[in-house]
């Protein structure tokens, strides 16, 4: 009789195991389309007695894989950095018109053309007025470009602030999920989703605690989440400049920690804000290529104009400087560049001295934008080439960011798919498991039914 009861007990245990297994499989099928869901696996630890016994332990575990998660998050950070840089640089790239239809290049061409025409009739008051107007167009073009870059800088600052806010929101959510995990709630899926989202914004390192909670640091060293505590980041240095060019924007944690190296969207934005924009507008000890160009061109034009005479007549007055700019702050040259409201008779068009000509200065000014004379050069090249090199550098950075975006997005997709294969739900596999478990459950139930009949028969015999 005791053998039958043992068999009954064993079959009941098997039913319980298969029931748990079916429950896990049902959960897997239900969540097969849930983002970040890791399939549940039922593992029975054999007690060594043989077969499924009451002493066996049943554990339901997640198929999550920390390495796969880390790979996805790293890829997501790189894709985020490339995407944010590509977006901002795309806007910056549009500001540098290289067709000559508008902007600085068009102003240079008009300056050259107008002074060239003036050189043929240097006394023509109307052409002198046009030449002064061409100078004003140059100043306007630099001012407009500097203002547009300032607008882009302000938009980038706003994006940095918004990104930091999103990071702080996600950090808070993760801390809350940690708290739930510590109280035994299954937060695996929600946590994975939040960490994935966070990694797109900033590169993170995730440390797993035995209680299911995670610790998160950003940029290698800035603590974001520790247990149920999150630490807010803040962007320092947001805003314009009051001299000396653009200041650097740094990210600080409420713990006082900071890092200069971030990836993710935040890192991409910071790279544009702290490296590329100062390279154009000045900051961090560099004048900025736009200011260098504006100052170099304007100063040289003024030198030619003031060294010239207003005509070739004896005793003619010297020319008056056309451009004014903030010479005390080299990072403010483009913004502050203005053309003085000269009268036509103040314009220096004639060169002086024994070889002076009535249109010598006009000829020099007409050739100034493309001149390769050492005195006319800026950074070893003509003003026109300096502009084109600046635009080309920015264009290369934009092109690289666009290519990186596609490449890193592909890498992210690959990492996500690899992880999905590793931890995702296989409906085919679940179908097989459910069928097998269902059959096993039915078989166990049948065993119990037979044992029940045997028991009844034995009881009847005893009677």
């Amino acid at each position, binding site marked *: 009789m005791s053998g039958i009861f043992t068999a009954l007990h064993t079959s009941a245990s098997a039913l319980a195991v298969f029931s748990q297994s079916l429950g896990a499989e049902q959960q897997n*099928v239900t969540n*097969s*389309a*849930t983002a970040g*869901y890791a399939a549940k696996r039922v593992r029975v630890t054999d007690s060594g007695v043989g077969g499924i016994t009451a002493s066996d332990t049943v554990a339901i575990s997640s198929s999550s894989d920390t390495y796969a998660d880390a790979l996805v998050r790293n890829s997501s950070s790189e894709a985020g950095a490339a995407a944010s840089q590509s977006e901002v640089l795309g806007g910056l*790239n*549009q500001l*540098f018109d*290289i*067709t*000559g239809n508008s902007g600085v*290049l068009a102003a240079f*061409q008009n300056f*050259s*053309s107008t002074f*060239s*025409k003036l*050189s*043929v*009739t240097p*006394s*023509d008051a109307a052409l002198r007025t046009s030449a002064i107007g061409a100078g004003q167009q140059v100043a306007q073009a630099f001012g407009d470009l500097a203002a547009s870059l300032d607008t882009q800088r302000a938009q980038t600052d706003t994006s940095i602030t918004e990104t930091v806010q999103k990071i702080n929101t996600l950090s808070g959510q993760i801390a809350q999920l940690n708290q739930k995990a510590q109280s035994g709630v299954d937060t695996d899926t929600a946590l994975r989703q939040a960490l994935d989202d966070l990694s797109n914004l900033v590169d993170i390192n995730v440390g797993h605690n035995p209680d299911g909670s995670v610790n998160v640091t950003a940029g290698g060293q800035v603590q974001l989440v520790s247990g149920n505590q999150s630490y807010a980041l803040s962007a320092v240095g947001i805003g314009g400049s009051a001299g000396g060019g653009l200041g650097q924007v740094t990210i600080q944690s409420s713990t006082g920690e900071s890092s200069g190296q971030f990836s993710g969207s935040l890192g991409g934005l910071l790279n544009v804000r702290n490296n590329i924009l100062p390279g154009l507008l000045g900051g961090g000890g560099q004048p900025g290529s736009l200011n260098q160009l504006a100052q170099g061109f304007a100063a040289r034009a003024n030198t030619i104009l003031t060294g010239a005479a207003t*005509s*070739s*007549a004896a005793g003619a007055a010297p020319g008056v400087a056309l451009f004014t700019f903030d010479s005390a702050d080299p990072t403010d040259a483009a913004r502050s560049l203005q053309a003085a409201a000269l009268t036509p008779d103040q314009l220096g068009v*004639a060169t002086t001295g024994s070889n002076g*000509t*009535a*249109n*010598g200065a006009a*000829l020099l000014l*007409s050739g100034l*934008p*493309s001149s390769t004379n050492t005195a006319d050069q800026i950074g070893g090249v003509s003003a*026109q*080439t300096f502009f*084109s090199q600046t*635009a*080309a*550098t*920015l*264009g*290369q950075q*934009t*092109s690289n960011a666009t290519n990186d975006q596609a490449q890193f*997005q592909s890498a992210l*997709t*690959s990492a*996500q*798919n690899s992880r*999905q*294969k590793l931890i*995702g*739900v*296989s*409906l*085919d596999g679940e*179908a*097989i498991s459910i*069928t097998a478990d269902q059959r096993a459950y039915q078989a166990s139930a049948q065993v119990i039914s037979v044992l029940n009949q045997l028991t009844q028969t034995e009881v009847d015999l005893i009677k």
Partner: protein
Amino acid sequence: MITGATKPGSDYFLDGLNSIRNKEALTERQISSGYRIQTAADSPTEITDLVRLNGQLAANQTQTQNFGRLSTELQSADQGISTVISAVESAKTLGLQGGTATSTADSRQAIAAQVQGLISQVVGVANTSVEGRYIFAGDSDTVTPYQSDSSSAFGYSYQGAASSTRQVLDGTGHSLYAAATAQQLFDHRDTSGQPDASSVLTGLQNLVTALQSNTGIDTAVSSLETASTYLNGQLSQVGTSEQELTAAQNLAATQKTDLQTALSGIRDTDISQAAIDLNTEKVAESAAVAAEGGGSQKTLFDYLG
């Protein structure tokens, strides 16, 4: 079948489709605009050349306009000097008529009046202006060169600049035309500043005086010969400048074509190649969509019933 928020492979498909559509958009933009390069990011390594060629083309166009302006000026100078040469020839003929034995005092006075008219004609030529600029006034080209002056021997005095230092350069930096002033052309002076035998106006005035006094007519006519020779020399120089200008214009036209060709080679879209690319991209997109749509979406659950 592994499933997730999206079907496995769907992200690959969407990335690929996005890439194809980005290429299509770029190709369509290149075809519709006609330009392969519109921003620096389109081809950063070619931007410096593109900007240089654009600048050179713009300078070429301005240079061509300047040449046109100079051409008008040279034609006017050529025509003006030719007119003065004709006037000198007429004066010589008139002088010869006045110097014959059959001429009377009245006829000589009438001839002198005609020569006086020729002086006015020469002054008119000297005061020629092109587009508001007095072309024989030297550097003071806004001032009328000859203005009435009763103290002057021939009734006019020169008010323009002593010289013309303006330079109009060709594409190689060579000065095309060194314009002479009206005084240099029509009232040539010696080193002491006195009119010499090449002075047309002085020669004509001398003829007028000779006709009126009936003395020295032959000498006056003969001095006009010197002036005529001098003017022909000046006309020849203008002609040389015109030839050089024509050569410069032709060179500029050739350079314009070369620049446009070079610029087009960098900037413009190869339409036929772009059309092929666009067609290929469309086919790739259609094939990708069809392949993705045709894949089986079924799992074992669908067969379990």
